[in-house]
Every structure is written in C-alpha cells, then in structure tokens.
C-alpha cells in the first residue's frame, strides 16, 4: 500500500462560542492515498465541513496534527495550497459573480506557473477548461450565465490549475440538480483515474458515496464511528449509527415499505457544546450498554481495513 499524501492524525477542533465550547471535531484520523477516494458521510452538524476545513487549513486544529507527504504542516498555507485544494458545496458561491470564467482560470495559472506569453496562458486556460469537458466558448461567460453543473466544473478547473495532489470536495454535488449530479461524480472519478489524485468526498448521501468512492468513513456528532471499504460497510454496518443511516436512506428497492415509516423517534442528535459522556451515540442507540454511557469507545481495528468505535465490537 502506498504512502498517504494527506493525513489527519487525531485532530480535534473546538470553537469558542461565548463562554462555552463547541467540540465540532474530536479525535479524527483520516488518510488520503493517491488514486483513492475516501467518502466522509454523516448527518448535518457532524463535523464533516469542519474536518475538510481543517484539512484545507482554514482553521488550525485544537489538537492533533495534519501531515502532508508524511511531514507535519506548519507555517503559511500558501505552499500547502499547491498540493491541496478544496471544492466548495455551493457552486454559486465559490465563483465571484463579477469575474469571467477566464479571469478565474488565468489568475490561478499565473499564480502557479511561470507563463511567458499570452499565448502560453491562453493555451493553459483552454487545456483546463477542456479537462472538465467544457467548450472554450465558456471562458468568456460570467458565472450567472452558467448552470450549476457548469459552474462546479469551472471551480474544479480552477482547482486543477494548481495541479494539486489532493482534492477535498465538501458536498460538491449537493446543490446541483439531481439529473446532473452523476456527471459531476463521473468527472471526479475520471480525474482520479487520470491524474491519480487523492480525493476526499464529503456527502450525506450514502448512495452517492457508494457510487463514487473506495472507502467510507462515517462521522457522528464530531466523532468518527466507522470506516472501511464501501461495500463492506454498507452491506454489513458494524456501528448502530451506520446501520440507522443506511436504514433511513431512501431506497426504492427496499422490501417492506410500510414498516419503514414506523421508524421510532430517536430524538435529536446531541449538542456539541455539551456532548454526552461516553459514546456520543448512546442516547439514541437501541443497543446501548452501561459502559457506553461512561466511556468513549476506542478504535477497534478489524480485518479488511475496517475499523469502528463501538463497545459492541470491542467486546466481541
């Protein structure tokens, strides 16, 4: 197995909110390998974006470390962004409405490549736009003249101008119309295959995670609960939360329709300001045990690269 390009080791991020603290991410460990896609799934507020932003160095971790090519990162992030780029969720928001597509790409190219001439620059820009399957004619459009999918392509093209090793996608398709989401996923898949990019794909749609990625990591309330190769995790979830997530996801092929809507009321996900002691899922867990209420479960490594944080597995 090859060396991870980007790694998070036991990183935590706490935000100060008035006098209290939001424990948004706790003890998260994640490795991104070249040519592999990791999906990070979890419900809203579980800390996915925070983790992505930690990896993009928008925030400094409260504890833990982030390693790029095996080295702990520090100092100004300028250099770091040569290797790591983040794609935002909202394609409408991540392009300045006042700049043409060309401006965005040219700036990126100029900042990272010694372009000698206008022709040189033009050629590079055209290459980029073609990589994301858009025609040259789109270069002179403003963002508002593009559809969501086209915008997201431009955003990806801009990130590619930097020639990064890692692409972090924070729900890159959730704002797009369902009918064009698949094109985006297919594009990402192609980039991984062609360039050997390491990709983090954040989503709350477990089906699309399954479609695109190699590995799945599930987060709950700021903590990682389970991870491993996608088919294994979906077919045989180890953590009760993963189970719940999969059961709740819409699936037209599901057998018994009526029973599904008998889902019991599990209450709200916990507050991150004062999270439950022990396993953060225990208040909603149907199989919670006494130990779950007091002690956080450790990481249990299983076969086939699977792991989980659950006392059930630890006990076994």
């Amino acid at each position, binding site marked *: 197995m090859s060396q991870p390009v980007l790694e998070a080791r036991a990183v935590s991020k706490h935000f100060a909110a008035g006098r209290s603290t939001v424990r948004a991410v706790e003890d998260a460990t994640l490795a991104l390998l070249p040519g592999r896609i990791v999906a990070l799934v979890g419900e809203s507020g579980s800390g996915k974006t925070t983790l992505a932003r930690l990896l*993009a160095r*928008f925030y400094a971790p409260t504890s833990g470390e982030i390693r790029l090519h095996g080295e702990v990162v520090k100092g100004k992030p*300028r250099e770091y*962004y*040569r290797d790591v*780029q*983040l794609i*935002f969720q*909202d394609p409408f*928001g*991540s*392009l*300045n409405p*006042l*700049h043409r597509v060309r401006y*965005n790409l040219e*700036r*990126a190219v100029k*900042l*990272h490549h010694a372009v000698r001439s206008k022709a040189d620059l033009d050629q590079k820009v055209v290459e980029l736009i073609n990589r994301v399957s858009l025609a040259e004619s789109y270069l002179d459009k403003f963002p508002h003249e593009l559809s969501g999918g086209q915008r997201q392509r431009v*955003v990806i093209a*801009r*990130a590619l*101008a*930097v020639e990064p090793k890692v692409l972090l996608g924070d729900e890159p398709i959730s704002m797009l119309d369902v009918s064009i989401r698949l094109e985006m996923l297919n594009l990402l898949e192609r980039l991984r295959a062609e360039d050997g990019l390491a990709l983090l794909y954040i989503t709350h749609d477990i089906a699309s995670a399954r479609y695109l990625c190699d590995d799945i990591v599930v987060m709950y309330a700021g903590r990682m609960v389970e991870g491993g190769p996608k088919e294994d995790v979906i077919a045989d979830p180890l953590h009760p939360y993963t189970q719940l997530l999969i059961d709740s996801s819409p699936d037209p092929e599901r057998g018994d329709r009526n029973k599904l809507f008998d889902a019991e009321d599990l209450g709200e996900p916990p507050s991150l300001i004062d999270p439950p002691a022990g396993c953060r899922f225990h208040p909603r867990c149907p199989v919670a045990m006494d130990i779950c209420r007091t002690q956080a479960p450790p990481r249990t490594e299983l076969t086939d690269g699977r792991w989980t944080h659950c006392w059930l597995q630890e006990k076994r």
Partner: protein
Amino acid sequence: MLKSWKVRIGLSILTFFVLLAVFGPVVGGDPRANDIQAISQPPSWQHLFGTTQFGQDVLAQTIAGARGSMLVGILAAAIGTLIAILVGVPAGYFGGAVDNGLNFLTNLFLVMPVLPLILIVAGYVQGTGPFVIALIIGLFGWSGGARTLRAQALSLSSRDFVLAMRMVGEPHRRLIFCEVLPHLTGWISAMFLHGMIGGVMAEAGLAFLGITDSGSISWGTMIQAAQQQSAVLRGLWWWFVPPGLCIALIGTAATLVNFGVDEVSNPKLRMARRSVVVRTRKVAEA
C-alpha cells in the same frame, strides 16, 4: 439599472445640478453684482428669480450656490466614504484584533452626537472655508457607512469565492481590491449619495447658524442671508425658496437613486413596484 424611472429621474436631477455647479457660474452671471435700481424685486424678466435686498440676482446666486453647496456635499461625501472604506473594509475583512480596534472606533463615532459635535468643532475652527467645513462634516459622518461596510466585508470575506481565490494563492491585497471591494460598489455609491445630501444639508445648517464662511455663496448662506434680513417675515419668498427647493430636489434625487438601486438589487422590492402590481392586476383581469 437605468430601466428604473427612479434611478433615471434621480440621476438626471443630480447630473443637472452637477453641470450647474461646473458650468453654471459661466452662464449664470455675477452673483455678487449689485443692481441698486432693483432691490428686493420679485421675479421679473430682468431677474427671473427676483433680486435680494442687496440688488443681487437670485438666479445667479442660486446657480453659484449650486457650486458652493455641491462642492461641500461632494467633498464631505468623498472624505466620509473614504474613511468608511478605510475603516470598515479592513475591519470586516481581517477580523480579530484589527476588527476590535476599528469597530470600537466606529461604534464610538456612531454614538457621538454628530451635529452638536460638528457645531462645536466648526465653532472652534473659526473662519472656515468650504474645504474645512467639508472636512469636518466628512470626519464626523463616516461611522454609519463604516458599520455597513464592515458587516458586508465580514460576510464577503468568509464567502466561498474569497476563500477559493485565497486557496488559489491570491494575496490579501488582491483579495480585498479584486474580490471584496467590487461587491461593495453598490453600498459605496449609496453611501456616497447619502453622504452628499447629508453634506449639503449639514452645510446649509451650519451656514444657517452662521458658522461657515458667509463670504462664499452656497444655498445655505443664501438662506442665512435671507433670514438675517428677515426675508421670510417681509415676504421676499423668492429669495429663500429657491435654495431650499434646490436642496430638497438634490435630496430627493439622491434618495430616488438609492431607492431605485435598492429595488434593482433587492428582488423583493422590485416585485413590489407599482408597475409590476398594475401589470399583474391587468393580466389577472384579462
């Protein structure tokens, strides 16, 4: 934007007055020339707007006053807007300690009673020309704008496109000037217009109190001169009505433009326009 009648009318009035301020004195005649034969005359063919008690032509004075008032207004607005940008944008963009300091300053100026403060300072700085008056008005009138710009810059600075460009490697300077600032032009121009009418009004008020240099002609000094000669009591309405109306017109124009711009940028306001409502009703009735 020019589709809105409000913006069109507002801009035409403003343009008219700016042209008047620039070229008016060339065509308007000498505002100080005394015609002793025509003292306190109501409007006539010789003197379209009548004459003052000093035999000076009110029309010529109104035209010359445009320059005086607009100069102060525009200058004050420029100074105020500039300070607002310099204080508000960095505060919002950088946040943290920079923000704390600048925001405190802004809030401080925000709660200071501006008119009395201007009065006192203008009173201290005796014998003030239009530039000093504009400077004072501008210096004390930036805080509201800075607050708005700060809030806007704050939200813009965390917008994805700024973060994205930062990730691509843009330096802060370029981020501020090429990514953030262009989005503020609407606010800034509204602020400028607002500042301009505020400047014109403040100048008129100060002139009325006799604080500005009464040697220079502005609409404010015209009203003050008229007031000093009891023009109101004596029914010399043609002396003080034109400058007051001019101020009101400029104010209305500026408000109209801002209103129109608001409507263009805020679809909710746009949908509430009368034209829309009337058209909808027509379609519904058809």
